[in-house]
């Protein structure tokens, strides 16, 4: 018997299972994403966080029940799901390297009234580099462009996958600030390895291990408890990055891919 979705959830995930190249990487995952604030999806490397995000969007083979803003979406194609109001910031940015910054943003616009001003204000660097090919941007600038693509539409949920991965500390801070600003108007499901960023942004956490949900609760409760952090993430509270899981080698391969 599935648990009913709380009325203040924007997204409910029930019994989500996902495969990559025929291998099970997410297994029977259920959780809710509140309609406000940032919810962090945590776990050691390779436990299926990215696959969960991709599964929600239908970018990989999956089954399960997905309800977004009261509408079942698991049978919809990816572009239809996104058109319902979900912005996606993928792991490794995935900007279109041969398109200019302006073209990347224009491509992402889904309505005739894109939020150009918001994106320009959040990332003034992108305005200066509008004509530059995205492939020539630094990692931090590419991440801002990737975030800009998600923020340029008035979404009802953002799925943000490891936005600070591989970035210099000062850029991490800028990205975190941008996400904090975005979170004032749109709920975010955030996959993040950097626990300091999670502490700064997230109100709720969901922890995966071995492709399953092993903990849900308030972010503060988890992050203030060394025992819980060590148990679920394999690090001490002072460390930023969780250790790899030994439980899900296949998932680790997928996330690296």
């Amino acid at each position, binding site marked *: 018997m599935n648990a009913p979705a709380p009325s203040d959830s924007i997204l409910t995930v029930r019994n989500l299972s996902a495969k990559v190249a025929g291998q099970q990487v997410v297994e029977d995952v259920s959780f809710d994403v509140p309609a406000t604030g940032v919810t962090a999806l945590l776990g050691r490397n390779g436990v299926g966080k990215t696959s969960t995000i991709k599964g929600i*969007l239908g*970018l990989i083979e999956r089954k399960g029940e997905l309800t977004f803003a009261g509408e079942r979406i698991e049978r919809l*194609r*990816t*572009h239809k799901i*996104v*058109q319902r109001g979900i912005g*996606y910031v*993928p792991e490794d940015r*995935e900007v*279109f*390297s*041969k*398109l200019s910054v302006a*073209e990347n943003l*224009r*491509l*992402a616009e*889904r309505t005739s009234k894109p939020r150009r001003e918001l994106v320009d204000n959040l990332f003034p660097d992108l305005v200066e580099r509008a004509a530059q090919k995205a492939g020539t941007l630094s990692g931090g600038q590419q991440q801002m462009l990737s975030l800009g*693509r998600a923020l340029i*539409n008035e979404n009802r949920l953002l799925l943000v996958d490891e936005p600070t991965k591989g970035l210099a500390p000062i850029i991490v801070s800028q990205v975190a600030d941008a996400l904090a600003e975005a979170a004032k108007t749109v709920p975010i499901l955030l996959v993040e390895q950097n626990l300091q960023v999670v502490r700064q942004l997230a109100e709720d956490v969901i922890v995966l291990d071995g492709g399953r949900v092993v903990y849900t609760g308030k972010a503060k409760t988890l992050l203030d408890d060394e025992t819980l952090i060590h148990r679920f993430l394999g690090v001490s509270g002072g460390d930023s990055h969780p250790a790899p899981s030994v439980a899900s080698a296949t998932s680790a391969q997928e996330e690296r891919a």
Partner: protein
Amino acid sequence: MSTIVLLLITGLGLGALYFLVASGLSLIYGLMDVLNFAHGSFLTLGAFAGWEFARRFGADSWGTFLLSLLVGAAVGAIFAVLTELLLIRKLYERLIEQVLVTVGLALATVALFEGIWGQDPIYLTAPAWMGGQTNVLGASIPNDRFLYIAAAVIVLIAIVLFLKFTRFGLIIRAGVENRSMVTALGIDVRSAFTLVFAIGGAAAGIGGVLASHYNGYVSPYIGGSLLIFAFIVTVIGGLGSLSGAAIASAVVAVLQQFANYHWGIGDLVVVLLLAAVLLLRPSGLLGSKA
């Protein structure tokens, strides 16, 4: 000197025909990873449609000739769109099935064309100017070659402008790079697939009408023979690269003309060039996919 000019310009004329076929092949593969072996059938049907139109309305008039190009383009585009919608769409990311279906379609359509128009070449007439020659630096160049080159340049410019300045063009360029991310931005990339097939089919249809004038006849086999060289050009230029296809078309055809003129081994030289490119630069001259 005059021989060099002659071989160069006639080579570019032949390369123009290669490009008209290869441009569609390259775009289709670049966006959809589909190797379309039925592309020659778009060309053949376009050629027959152009000929059917021209013979009814006076094949020796310029107006009819130009309209026959449009008819060939429209028929090629419609055939290509139907192929995409009815056969290819269900087979994306299923490479073996795509090859089987497109090869099967190519064979079936040739048989169909034989049934409708017969196996023998049907000779055609054209505006008188096309049969004449123009002297360039001492070389007598058949006039029709200039027409093929002009048509290919116009098609190239039109496609480049379309890709550069329209939203669909933007989607196609992004889709060639990362199709799933385009979808993840809320864009139905399938409509871009259909459009690319239409563009490729239209270019092949124009190529079909021009190829029939190049040969002096139209036949059910006109597409198949050009398709082989178009595939070679597509691979040498780099799968998915329009500019690569344009450069490779010119290089391959000019080389072929020179080798044919001096040693009679044009086709062999082209195949050797293909082998060299595959060995030394598997992604082709300007391609990103090996």
